[in-house]
């Protein structure tokens, strides 16, 4: 029984070709550690930054701050703002705990107020509702996901950001589920802060991620972490220059080398969005035909599909798919606890299948056969 991996929304597999080799080569090489040793070598972190800037269409690569993952980046953004008690954050019920938990912590420690807007039955933010909430709550910060990690519904980040900016809010975009599979252009869209991860649709290694910080935000955002930077060591505070201001401590060079390798490969092998969409729709059509209760999502969407099977507990379905059929998927609330009320999926959540550009039609069909077999087998 071959393994079929349909859990790419959690972390992608396989990674881009040569990513593993690049990481392995990095860890075996003499670490030049740019700027901190007397001899010179390739500045791998800066190359990765340039590649990301090109992908994000950000003019200045220095506006991209590295960190181990999107959660770290979101924390750097949310904790780095100077909060006053009573200030308001507008966010959505579709958010991941990587947004919700830092916000909850800030509500307890800084006295901020959190307002969550509902989403439609596909898990998508409704622009009219977003606009009303911006008008009503006048938030200091607006945080929203680009794509739901539960349903794959893509939000119109540009429109939502423009609305929030017009209302005077700082905008923070969670691009964890979108970067690498659909365009993400924070600078063009006027977004202030955008968090991303390297190990999902960028096809890079875990331990790589970052935060885009708009130039106007560089000074307003305070560093959460302080420590060695390899430069301006005489200062007792973090250097003011970007991106060093937000990058204390030794970086994860091997992960960044791996991510750079994946980015180079992806630049040469552009993701075919229509192929991925067709495959996702093939999966949805098949699920519908065999009687699965899927969360219906219209395009634009990421290759994420959530469903349930009548008469079956979602955890059992995941267990059977994985152990009986060798299909790796994810079940439950997917770390996004609030969205399920709006999808009719409480209290047990959903079974989630998430494809990648490496998923084949044969794998989709095998998955459909497996789910059909489950539905047709009452035991």
């Amino acid at each position, binding site marked *: *029984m071959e393994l079929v991996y349909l859990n790419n929304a959690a972390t992608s597999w396989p990674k881009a070709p040569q990513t593993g080799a690049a990481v392995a080569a990095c860890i075996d090489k003499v670490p030049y550690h740019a700027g901190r040793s007397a001899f010179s070598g390739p500045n791998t972190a800066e190359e990765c930054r340039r590649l990301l800037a090109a992908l994000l269409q950000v003019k200045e690569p220095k506006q991209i701050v590295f960190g181990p993952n999107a959660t770290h980046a979101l924390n750097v953004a949310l904790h780095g703002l100077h909060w006053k008690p009573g200030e308001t954050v507008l966010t959505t019920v579709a958010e991941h705990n990587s947004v919700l938990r830092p916000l909850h912590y800030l509500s307890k420690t800084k006295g901020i107020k959190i307002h969550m807007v509902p989403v439609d039955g596909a898990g998508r933010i409704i622009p009219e509702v977003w606009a009303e909430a911006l008008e009503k709550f006048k938030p200091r910060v607006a945080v929203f996901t680009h794509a739901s990690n539960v349903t794959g519904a893509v939000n119109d980040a540009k429109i939502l950001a423009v609305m929030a900016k017009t209302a005077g809010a700082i905008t923070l975009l969670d691009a964890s589920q979108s970067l690498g599979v659909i365009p993400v252009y924070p600078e063009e869209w006027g977004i202030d802060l955008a968090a991303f991860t390297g190990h999902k649709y960028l096809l890079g290694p875990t331990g790589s991620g970052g935060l885009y910080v708009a130039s106007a935000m560089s000074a307003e955002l305070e560093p959460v972490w302080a420590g060695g930077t390899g430069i301006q060591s005489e200062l007792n505070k973090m250097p003011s220059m970007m991106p060093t201001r937000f990058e204390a401590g030794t970086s994860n060079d091997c992960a960044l080398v791996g991510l750079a390798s994946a980015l180079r490969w992806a630049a040469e092998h552009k993701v075919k969005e229509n192929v991925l969409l067709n495959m996702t729709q093939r999966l949805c059509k098949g699920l519908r035909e065999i009687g699965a209760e899927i969360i219906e999502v219209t395009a634009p969407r990421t290759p994420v599909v959530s469903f349930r099977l009548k008469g079956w507990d979602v*955890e*059992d379905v995941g*267990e*059977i798919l994985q*152990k*009986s*059929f*060798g299909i790796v998927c*994810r*079940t*439950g*609330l*997917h*770390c996004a606890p609030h969205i399920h009320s709006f999808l009719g999926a409480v*209290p*047990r*959540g959903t079974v989630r299948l998430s494809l990648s550009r490496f998923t084949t039609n044969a794998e989709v069909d095998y998955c459909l056969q497996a789910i059909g*077999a*489950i539905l047709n*087998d009452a*035991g």
Partner: protein
Amino acid sequence: MMRVECKKVENCFVSTHMYAYYLDMKISEEFVQAFSAFGVVVFHKKFPRPFFKVTLTNGTTIKGVLNDTVIKAQYPDNDPQTSKQVFEKLLDELLQRNKQMKEVTVDYE
């Protein structure tokens, strides 16, 4: 006494009391059927690796696949600790019985 490694299963569900038990034997159909005296056993034998689920009278559910070495037990929200103790005692007895049956079989060979 039962000598089985037990680990809490951390998952993405609300309020679950699920534990995985790592047995030192492959799970046979006979072993699973032994639970039928204490609850309802359902087999799904058409799957590439047959799946089973047992629902004990106190609400504890047990599941796994045949020929694997791991079973998962989920305890009801009301008093999961007592249910855990009850199941582990039962599992211990069934494992002992299974072991004795194998020893008897070996004796006759």
